[in-house]
């Protein structure tokens, strides 16, 4: 390996509630494609955002060409030759390609000359084999084209290190090959490319060197020729863990059924394709999948917040696909959304009012036009007691509760009247070990009571601990389904990564 152009030593970065990078060393050499592999939450993006000047590390140093560098802003990083293409593009929709490329640090310094500028951008794009139309407005470009603009922004400034954060997450299969070809051309120039991904097959295809992150630390470093997908999957997700004993499943009749469900995402593209799955009473069906593969939309379809564009949603055999969230609640569909503080709860409200968000319009809380505050407090107190929500008093503002207690409140409210179905999305995100265990106990308790639970989670640990069956979503389709008792982590990891057996 040639002398590294960038070295990261001992990088630590923490956010409220979680340590994203717990002391990471990494070297990036010129002319190589370095893959940074790991599950969601492993710390890959955070580490690169530190390098790109978006975050200041809490500890550790960054060396560029052997000398320590203090990167205080993205502008600093770009000036030093480090460019990052984020997962969520940072493009100005109403500008042209050229305007987006020119935006920021670099030439020209003052005067814009449209004809000259367009030509210059076209020239640099051609030199790197990136097909773009400089005069086009970004708003009209496809996702693949936008990505090319993002890459072009960095090449225009002669970036020596180009970081691509999950670049294929938003591409169609046909667009991946041209991207790889562009990456090869870029490193042939002597630049370095850091390729952040969770997709094993792609990483094996493109990388010269692979570094695997897990839980904020480096779990291993290998070369593609010396490893297999299975070995990588094990590095990524960890070893088998003893599962705590759990009563045997005794599932009853099918409660929730999805048949051939399609759904459209927020940006107008189809995001769920022909999803069919069933959840029976007294079982937990886990949905595995990396973020962005349709989990949120699936949860919303079941909860009533997103109408399916095709297919059926049935509860106890009856179609509910046309019903709104309130009607579904009344039929027994409960939903714990992933954004507990902005969607499932109202952060600015006291505990009392959050406790009745679903039931405020019906007795005992809703009496005619009135809102019976005393009844609301009684309900809140009951939830607090049954679910052991630790709060100083029942009028505390929910935003000030710890995440664990917020979640207990939310789950408590949703399951107060024994729903038929509970959809829980990332229910332990951001919670500490104790709170996570408490939520797990709650879910297992519901299972014992005969509730049909649909659990969507990013954590394989969690899914293996709780689920009876695991369904894997990949690119909006069911990639596979396995009984949790006999499935292995590698198997599920491969399905999640789109590299089915």
């Amino acid at each position, binding site marked *: 390996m040639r002398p590294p152009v960038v070295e990261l030593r001992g990088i630590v970065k923490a956010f409220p509630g979680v340590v994203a990078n717990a002391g990471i060393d990494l070297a990036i050499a010129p002319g190589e494609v370095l893959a940074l592999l790991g599950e969601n939450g492993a710390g890959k993006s955070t580490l690169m955002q530190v390098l790109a000047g978006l975050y200041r590390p809490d500890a550790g140093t960054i060396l560029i060409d052997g000398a320590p560098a203090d990167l205080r802003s993205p502008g600093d990083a770009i000036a030093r030759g480090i460019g990052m293409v984020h997962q969520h593009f940072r493009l100005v929709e109403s*500008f042209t390609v050229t305007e987006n490329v020119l935006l920021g640090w670099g030439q020209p310094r003052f005067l814009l000359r449209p004809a000259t500028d367009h030509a210059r951008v076209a020239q640099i794009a051609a030199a790197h084999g990136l097909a773009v139309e400089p005069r086009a407005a970004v708003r009209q470009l496809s996702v693949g084209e936008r990505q090319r603009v993002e890459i072009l922004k960095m090449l225009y400034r002669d970036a020596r290190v180009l970081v691509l954060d999950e670049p294929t997450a938003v591409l169609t299969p046909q667009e991946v090959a041209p991207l790889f070809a562009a990456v090869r051309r870029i490193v042939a120039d002597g630049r370095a490319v850091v390729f952040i991904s969770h997709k094993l097959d792609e990483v094996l295809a493109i990388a010269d060197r692979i570094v695997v992150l897990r839980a904020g630390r480096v779990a291993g470093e290998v070369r593609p020729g010396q490893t297999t997908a299975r070995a990588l999957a094990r590095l990524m997700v960890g070893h088998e863990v003893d599962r705590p004993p759990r009563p045997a499943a005794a599932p009853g009749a099918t409660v929730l059924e999805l048949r051939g469900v399609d759904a459209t995402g927020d940006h107008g593209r189809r995001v769920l394709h022909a999803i069919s799955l069933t959840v029976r009473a007294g079982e937990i069906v886990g949905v595995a999948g990396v973020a962005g593969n349709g989990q949120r939309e699936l949860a919303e379809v079941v909860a009533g917040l997103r109408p399916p564009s095709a297919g059926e949603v049935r509860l106890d055999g009856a179609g509910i696909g046309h019903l709104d969230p309130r009607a579904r609640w009344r039929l027994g569909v409960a939903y714990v959304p992933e954004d507990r503080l902005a969607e499932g709860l109202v952060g600015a409200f006291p505990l009392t009012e959050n406790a009745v968000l679903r039931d405020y319009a019906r007795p005992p809380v809703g009496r005619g036009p009135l809102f019976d505050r005393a009844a609301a407090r009684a309900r809140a107190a009951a939830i607090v007691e049954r679910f052991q929500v630790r709060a100083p008093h029942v009028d505390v503002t929910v935003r000030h509760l710890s995440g664990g207690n917020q979640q207990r409140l939310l789950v408590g409210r949703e399951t107060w009247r024994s729903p038929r179905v509970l959809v829980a999305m990332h229910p332990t995100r951001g919670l500490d070990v104790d709170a996570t265990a408490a939520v797990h106990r709650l879910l297992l308790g519901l299972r014992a009571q005969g509730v049909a639970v649909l659990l969507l989670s990013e954590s394989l640990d969690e899914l293996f601990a709780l689920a009876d069956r695991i369904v894997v979503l990949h690119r909006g389709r069911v990639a596979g389904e396995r009984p949790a008792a006999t499935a292995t982590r590698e198997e599920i990891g491969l399905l999640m990564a789109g590299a089915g057996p």
Partner: protein
Amino acid sequence: MTPDQLVALLAAAVTAGAPLIYAGVGETLAERSGVLNLGVEGVMLVGAVCGFAVAVASGDPWLGALAALGAGALLAAGYALLTVTLGTEQVTTGLALALYGTGLSAFLGKPLIGVPNPAPFRAFPVPGLAELPVLGPILFRQDALVYLSYGLALAAWWWLARTKPGLHLRACGENPEAADAMGVNVAAMRYGAVIAGGALAGLAGAYLSLAYTPAWTENMTGGLGWIAIALVIFSTWNPLRLLAGAYLFGAVDALGFRVQLLGVETSSILLRMLPYLFTLAVLVVITVARRQASVPAALGRPYFREE
């Protein structure tokens, strides 16, 4: 209406449009950078009173204009401190600024009421151009500040469309995250735009007290600041369209007076409703036809890079 009367009307429209151009261009710059400033009326009034005071004391209207620029810039700097650095709610803060400016100008202007202006800006013909048929009397027999206003709108357009700093300014108003990621100092750009906007609003006010009226009376802007805000929307944040819109609105104003002379008194008031109704119509069209392309996407939202 005779041709002579029409020419006189158009010349009056140009004169009436000048303060709208100054205030409107200023507000366009601020809003294009992402900051909504509803306090224009108050800043104009403070500019008017400061300009007047300095002009009377010094005998030089240009010093007055300069003072108005400075006063407007100072007020706007305070506004920027609140909205950009502290991130306060822009609608409410803007209204506070309007109220404060109105009050401050009335307070400072008490001793100036009824004081004659010894040195106002006077109209003078541009040699050569003033003799042109039709355009000559309309455009080239105005005072110095009107002549400057022609250039201002063009300069603002050029700055926004053809310079790198202008590109950066527009980016701050459309997608500050994108601008920040590429090394643009979003806060500095917004400060600059807001302060420039305030200075120009101050100058707009001074135009009234130093050229248009020219004297100081309380609340002499009479809602012109609000019309300027409406004008910015009406012209879809484009300084060239603003020029046209300002003269259109100025013509409506000038027409109002003349209609009175022609004996049709009350309908002049209905005419004055037109700028506001036009603006509302344009806003509805922009929003419903989803040409929200025109509205700076980040307008009104404070930006903080999450650390």
